[in-house]
């Protein structure tokens, strides 16, 4: 891959950038979940690797979060954009070379940023923990080049209309740039106090709501029609989804700070808008479900469809939780407990990861023109991911409910810690399963690249999934 950094754009085979992004994302996935599992072990067994600053929980937790969000999820998005955007515009990627440089600089920047976070260089702001010069790097060398490539590809398309997925991609890269720049204002200009606290959560909310959620959903709009052959059920509902994301998802940031002395009107407003998140959610889920009509057998038979639909189905509990847990009636009970950790993993490890998984599986096979090395390993990956995640989610949800009860009945905190302990161990086991499944995935994809059966011209990998 690196040899293409200095090649002429015309000499770079189409799809190289996407492959680079795709493999990087899998590697970050392995690293990120490995770190997650390590952290979980520390919470279950506090004397596991101890007395060493570099391996302290407080130094590792943010590295996990940033490795999975910026490494796995965002690079998988990058991969999806590199091949889906041109495919839907019936054109080539605007610049393969920019795409490859972008992935390269992304990996370099992220490695540097994570190392600095690891040694403790942090701004102390959750989700925008990177010090400001790393933020600047992210904006200039990571976010903007991606946005340019996607936008130019959409603008140079050879179709008349723009398909739903590409609206989301184009809007996503634009919105994430805005969110990034505005959300880091406290670091650019040293804003302090409540402004800093609020902007921290404004950023955290919007990076999820205007980047991860819509872009992940956009992937389903591509993979399902592409693999099943059914046209999208309704473009109108797609419109509804898109516009309600822009209007409703961009506003409820204050629901993360229901206990802070923010203006009451803002908290109430955020709560109401937060419930309206159900509008895009329902639009999205129903649209994809209805697109599946007549092809539900593929949910069982086809790996990519199974990944996508699982992700879409997980969006239902996700948005039910998301919509209601931030109302005052419920938030006071679950705020700051393991419930929220479970919810965060339902969003990122459940919903979004499964969708990205589908995009990476589909993309790598299509672009490398090779059939998956082993469908069995693929199935194993799927089930271990799903079961591991379910264990994680269930155990943390229970732990969260215990914590919530402990909070309102004013149980001495240590009793809560004791009661949570079995669930901490369960979470670690579930998470470790996820980690192992990713190692399997990396192996499977690597072998696909080296030894996968070559897909004959004119055919698609999923069509020959069961042929020997």
């Amino acid at each position: 891959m690196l040899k293409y950094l200095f090649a002429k754009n015309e000499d770079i085979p189409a799809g190289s950038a996407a492959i680079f992004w795709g493999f990087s994302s899998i590697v970050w996935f392995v690293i990120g979940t490995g770190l997650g599992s390590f952290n979980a072990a520390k919470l279950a067994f506090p004397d596991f690797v101890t007395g060493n600053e570099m391996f302290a929980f407080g130094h590792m937790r943010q590295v996990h979060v940033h490795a999975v969000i910026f490494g796995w999820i965002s690079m998988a998005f990058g991969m999806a954009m590199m091949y889906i955007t041109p495919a839907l515009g019936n054109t080539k990627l605007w610049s393969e070379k920019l795409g490859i440089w972008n992935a390269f600089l992304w990996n370099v920047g992220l490695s540097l940023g994570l190392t600095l976070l690891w040694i403790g260089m942090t701004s102390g702001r959750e989700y925008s923990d990177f010090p400001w010069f790393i933020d600047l790097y992210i904006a200039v060398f990571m976010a903007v080049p991606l946005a340019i490539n996607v936008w130019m590809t959409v603008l140079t398309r050879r179709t008349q209309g723009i398909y739903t997925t590409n609206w989301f991609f184009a809007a996503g890269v634009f919105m994430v740039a805005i969110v990034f720049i505005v959300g880091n204002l406290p670091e650019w200009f040293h804003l302090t106090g409540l402004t800093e606290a609020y902007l921290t959560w404004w950023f955290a909310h919007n990076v999820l709501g205007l980047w991860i959620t819509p872009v992940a959903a956009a992937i389903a709009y591509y993979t399902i029609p592409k693999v099943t052959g059914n046209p999208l059920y309704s473009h109108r509902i797609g419109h509804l989804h898109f516009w309600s994301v822009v209007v409703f998802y961009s506003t409820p940031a204050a629901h993360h700070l229901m206990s802070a002395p923010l203006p009451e009107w803002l908290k109430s407003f955020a709560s109401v808008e937060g419930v309206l998140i159900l509008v895009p959610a329902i639009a999205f889920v129903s649209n994809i479900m209805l697109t599946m009509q007549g092809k539900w057998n593929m949910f069982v038979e086809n790996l990519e469809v199974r990944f996508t639909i699982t992700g879409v189905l997980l969006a239902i509990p996700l948005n039910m939780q998301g919509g209601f847990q931030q109302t005052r009636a419920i938030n006071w009970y679950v705020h700051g407990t393991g419930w929220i950790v479970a919810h965060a993993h339902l969003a990122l490890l459940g919903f979004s990861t499964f969708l990205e998984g589908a995009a990476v599986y589909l993309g790598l096979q299509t672009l490398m023109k090779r059939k998956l090395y082993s469908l069995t390993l693929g199935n194993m990956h799927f089930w271990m991911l799903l079961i591991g995640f379910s264990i994680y989610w269930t155990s943390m949800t229970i732990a969260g409910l215990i914590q919530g009860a402990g909070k309102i009945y004013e149980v001495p905190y240590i009793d809560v810690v004791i009661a949570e302990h079995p669930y901490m161990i369960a979470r670690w086991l579930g998470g470790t399963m996820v980690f192992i499944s990713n190692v399997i995935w990396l192996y499977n994809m690597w072998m696909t690249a080296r030894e996968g059966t070559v897909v004959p011209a004119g055919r698609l990998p999923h069509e020959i999934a069961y042929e020997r």
Partner: protein
Amino acid sequence: MAFREYKVGARMFGFSLGTSMCITLLFPSFDIAASVSTDVALDKQLSAGWDAGFQLKDPLLLGWNKPLKVLVKNDPVTNQPLAEPIYAYVYKPGTSMPNGATHTDSLGEGVKQLSIEQGKVKEAKEASGAVFLINKSGKLPYMENASATRGWTPGDVLKGVADEDISHVGAGKTMFVREGCWWCHTLLPEQTQDWQVFGAPPMLGDFNGESPTAFGSDRKGPDLLHVGSRNASREWMMLHFFNPRLVQPHSIMPRFDYLWGDKDASGQKIDFDKWRAEYNDYREGKNPSPPDVPVPAKDSEARKLIDFILSLK
């Protein structure tokens, strides 16, 4: 842009996102900007200094560029005992000034004017350092630059004070941020039910000038905003940070023994391996009592962290 719809759409998009930003950023900013510093906020920002997260003057979060919070008993100029001891915030020359002194607007209406006119905060200069006080004589508290109003220089103030009266609160907050205590502890009791156990939730105006606020979002341990009022024992904190399981066998809090550095208060080298071996014997019941915890050295990170935690009243 082939279709007219896309032009309309692009405008609608700009309009929606713009409106959303107005409502979620612009409008709240008026409310937030109207908040007036309380004495709590003044204490926090004066003791923490310019920033407790990453900054160019403390890139590795080692607690540099931080003021000292000092209990002053004698007037540093005349050396006469003061009627009542007061806390002074000592910014040695070269230390960045607190936010309220450089961005007086952040103090809020009233406090801002008092701090400028009576407190002379604008005269505080980084090059010569300054000593600040919180003046609570009137209705509103304000920030007083004692170097200008009373002629107290950082050197004079520090000359006569005992080490017990010096708190490294600012450096300690940096340790708090760097060590990720806020991943497990919040600094924000909830408005709904935490009053009894964790104390009162903070008020509007309690944060002006603080950065980062490090509220935390996830609790795996108790809220710490008022921990110093629940437990003011330096000894307990020392044991607990060295190994939480010495005082709380079921705790999942990590050990922070590495914050002790190499040497203890008496200059002896700390032998961590030996300590752990003895501790393990104790856990297995081979020893009736755990080994003694070394007292942290005066300039150790552990001491700074404990100073900060005990300042959370």
